[in-house]
C-alpha cells in the first residue's frame, strides 16, 4: 500500500538564499531513510516541502504515481513529527493523539488511540497535558500522534535532538523497533551521524542544499564519495598524492615519492592530483624498518607524537616526514605492539581499505561540522 517517495529537481529559494538546490531523491517504500547533514544544510526545508508546509521553487514531488507537489498539507498522506514536537498544549495526551483521526471523521477512534498509546508505552498518561510530561514522553506522544494516521510517509525532524544522550540511544532503538513493526516509510532528519548510521537503511548526506552521497551506512563509511562525507561520517586521514599509472586492477599513486596502490573501483578520479583516504582504524603502526609483505601500502619514517589510551583502543597521532599527522586507532587486543610518543614507526594498510577523492575538494570539509 505504501509507495516510493520521489523528489525530482527540488529547489527552494528564500530571499537571496538557496536553501535546497536541485535535489533528486528516491525514498524506497517501507525504508528507514535518514537525511543527514550539518545544521543549516536544508534538511528541515526539504522535509517541509514533502509535508506541504513549504512550496518548492522548482521541481516535483511524487508519492508512487501521484504527484503531490501542490497539494495542501492536510490533503497529503504524510505526517510529521516536528522538531520540538509541537504538541497541542491545550489538549490532553489522548486528544493530541486522537487529533488526526477526529479530523478525518474516523468513527471508532478511541480503541485506536488506546492501542497507539500502548505502542509508545504511555497508556496511563492519556489524561495529562503535554506540559506535564518529560521530554522523552513528549517525544513519544509526537510520534504516536503522527503514526496513528498510518501515513504513507512519516517525516521526523530531529526527533531526538532535545533528549539527553542516554535517552537518545534508547529512543533510537525504540524508533527502529516501531518502524519495523508498522512498516511505514520513515524519513528521519538528523545532524548526528551516529544516529543516522545506527537507525537508517539508507542515508542521504546533505551539505549546502545538495546531496553529497546516498547509500547504506556501510557503503558510505567504507567508500565516501567526497571529502565532506569522509570527514562528516566518522574520521578520515586524507593524504595528498598524484596518480602516476596503473597496475592490473589498481591505480598507482605517488605520495611524497612513495608508491601506493588503490583499487580502481575505489577511485573517484583516474588522473592527476588526489586525496588518498584511509580510515584511522584501518591504518597499522609497526616499529620502523619492519618488513611488510607485497600488496601492502606503506609510508615510512613516521614518529609517534601523541598517544591516548581509551580502554578498548589506543589513539595515536603519527607525524610523517613532511609534517602531516595521521590518526591511527589500534584495538587493544594485546596481540600487537604498543608505542610511546617519540617512537619511530612505519605505517601500513591494505589497498582495499583506502579510497581516492578529487584533490579539488577541501580536505577539511565537514570536519568542523561534526559534533
Amino acid at each position, binding site marked *: 500500500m505504501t509507495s516510493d517517495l520521489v523528489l525530482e529537481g527540488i529547489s527552494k529559494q528564500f530571499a537571496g538564499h538557496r536553501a535546497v538546490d536541485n535535489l533528486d531523491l528516491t525514498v524506497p517504500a517501507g525504508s528507514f531513510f535518514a537525511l543527514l547533514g550539518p545544521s543549516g544544510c536544508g534538511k528541515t526545508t526539504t522535509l517541509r516541502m514533502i*509535508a*506541504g*508546509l513549504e512550496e518548492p521553487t522548482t521541481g516535483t514531488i511524487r508519492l508512487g504515481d501521484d504527484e503531490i507537489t501542490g497539494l*495542501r*498539507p*492536510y490533503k497529503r498522506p*504524510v*505526517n*510529521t513529527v*516536528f522538531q*520540538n*514536537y*509541537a504538541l*497541542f*498544549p*491545550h489538549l490532553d495526551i489522548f486528544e493530541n493523539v486522537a*487529533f*488526526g483521526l477526529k*479530523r*478525518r471523521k474516523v468513527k471508532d477512534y478511541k480503541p485506536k488511540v488506546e492501542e497507539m498509546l500502548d505502542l509508545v508505552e504511555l497508556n496511563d498518561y492519556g489524561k495529562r497535558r*503535554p*506540559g*506535564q*510530561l*518529560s*521530554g*522523552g514522553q*513528549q517525544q513519544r506522544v509526537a510520534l504516536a*500522534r*503522527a503514526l496513528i*494516521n498510518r501515513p504513507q510517509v512519516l517525516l521526523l525532524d530531529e526527533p531526538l535532538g*532535545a*533528549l*539527553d544522550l542516554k535517552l537518545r540511544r534508547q529512543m533510537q532503538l525504540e524508533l527502529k523497533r516501531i518502524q519495523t513493526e508498522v512498516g511505514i516509510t520513515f524519513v528521519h532528519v538528523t545532524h548526528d551521524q551516529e544516529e543516522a548510521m545506527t537507525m537508517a537503511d539508507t542515508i542521504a548526506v546533505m551539505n549546502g542544499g545538495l546531496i553529497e552521497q546516498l547509500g547504506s551506512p556501510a557503503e558510505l563509511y567504507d567508500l565516501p564519495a567526497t571529502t565532506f562525507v569522509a570527514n562528516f561520517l566518522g574520521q578520515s586521514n586524507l593524504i595528498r598524492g598524484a596518480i602516476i599509472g596503473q597496475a592490473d586492477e589498481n591505480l598507482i599513486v605517488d605520495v611524497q615519492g612513495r608508491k601506493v596502490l588503490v583499487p580502481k573501483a575505489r577511485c573517484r578520479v583516474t588522473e592527476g592530483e588526489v586525496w588518498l583516504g584511509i580510515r584511522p582504524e584501518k591504518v597499522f603502526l609497526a616499529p620502523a624498518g619492519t618488513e611488510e609483505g607485497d600488496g601492502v601500502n606503506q609510508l615510512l619514517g613516521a614518529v609517534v607524537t601523541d598517544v591516548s589510551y581509551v580502554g578498548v583502543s589506543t589513539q595515536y597521532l603519527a607525524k610523517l616526514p613532511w609534517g602531516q599527522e595521521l590518526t591511527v586507532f589500534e584495538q587493544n587486543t594485546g596481540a600487537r605492539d604498543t608505542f610511546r610518543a617519540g617512537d619511530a614507526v612505519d605505517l601500513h594498510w591494505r589497498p582495499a581499505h583506502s579510497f581516492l577523492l578529487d584533490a579539488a575538494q577541501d580536505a577539511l570539509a565537514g570536519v568542523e561540522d561534526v559534533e
Partner: protein
Amino acid sequence: MSAVGQLSAASQTPAPPPPRSGRRLTAYLLLLPGGLWLLLFFVVPLVSLLAASLYDPNGSIEDGFSMTWSFGNFADTMADYARPFGRSLWYALLTTAFCLLLGYPLAYAIAMKAGRWKNLMLALVIAPFFTSFLIRTLSWKLLLSDNGFVVDALKWLHILGPDGRLLATTAAVVTGLTYNFLPFMVLPLYASLEKIDRRLIEAGGDLFAGPLTTFRVVTLPLSMPGVVAGTLLTFIPAAGDYINAQLLGTPKQRMIGNDIQRLFSAGAYPTAAALSVTLMAAIVVLVLIYVRRAGTDDLV
C-alpha cells in the same frame, strides 16, 4: 525544549530552604510603596464609599450625613434606577460583542499576517490614545451630527430616512463605546495570538485539519486568554462609562454612570454611593462567573 527541565525540576525540587529573615525583609520593603499607595488611594476610598452607601439618605451636604446603617438604600435605589442599570449592562455587553467582532480579525491580521507592518499597525491601534477620551468622543459628536457628512451620505443612500438621525440614538452611544474601547480588546488579543507557536498551526494542517478547522480547534482555544482579558477590559469600563451616553445620547440612553455622576454632583451621596457599590458588586459577580466558565473548556 524546556519542558524536560521543568518536569525534572518539578519532580526533584527539594523543599525550599526557609528564607532567611533578611530576604523576607527585602520582600516586604519592596511591597511597601505599592501597598501604601493602594491603601491610601484604593482601600480608604472604597471603605468610605461603602460607608457612604449606608448613610441616612435624608442627610445633605449642608446638614451632614449620619451613619444609620441604611441597608434599605440598596433596595430603594435599585427600584428607582433599575432601567439605566440594566441599560448599562446591556450597552456594555453590546460594546464587548462589537469590539470582539471587530477586534479579533484585526488582532489576528496584525499578529499573523502583517509581517513587517506589524509595529506600524500596532502603533495605529494605539494612536487614538494620543488625544484625550473626551476630545475623541466630542469629535464623534461632530461626525454623527445631523448636518454632518455621514448623515448626509446615509440619507442619500436611503439607508437613513429624511428625518433620520444618528446622534442621540442608542446606535450612536454603542458606536462611541465600541470605538473608545476597541484598543482594550485588540491589544490583549494581539498579545495572545502573537504568542501562539506557528508550528502548532502547521501541526494542525499536517494532521488533516483545513484552515478553518485549525482555527477552531487550535488557534481560537489558544487565544482564549486574550479573549477573556479583552472582554473584561472592555466590559468593565464600558459598564461604568457615562461620557459616551452624555455626549452622543439623550436621557433615553442614560447609563448608570450618568446617574451616579449627577447624584454625586447634586450631593445625594448615599444614593450615588449605593448605586456605585451595586454596580461594582454586579460586575464582580458577572466577572467571577465568566472567568470560572472561561477557565473550564466549555467556553471553547
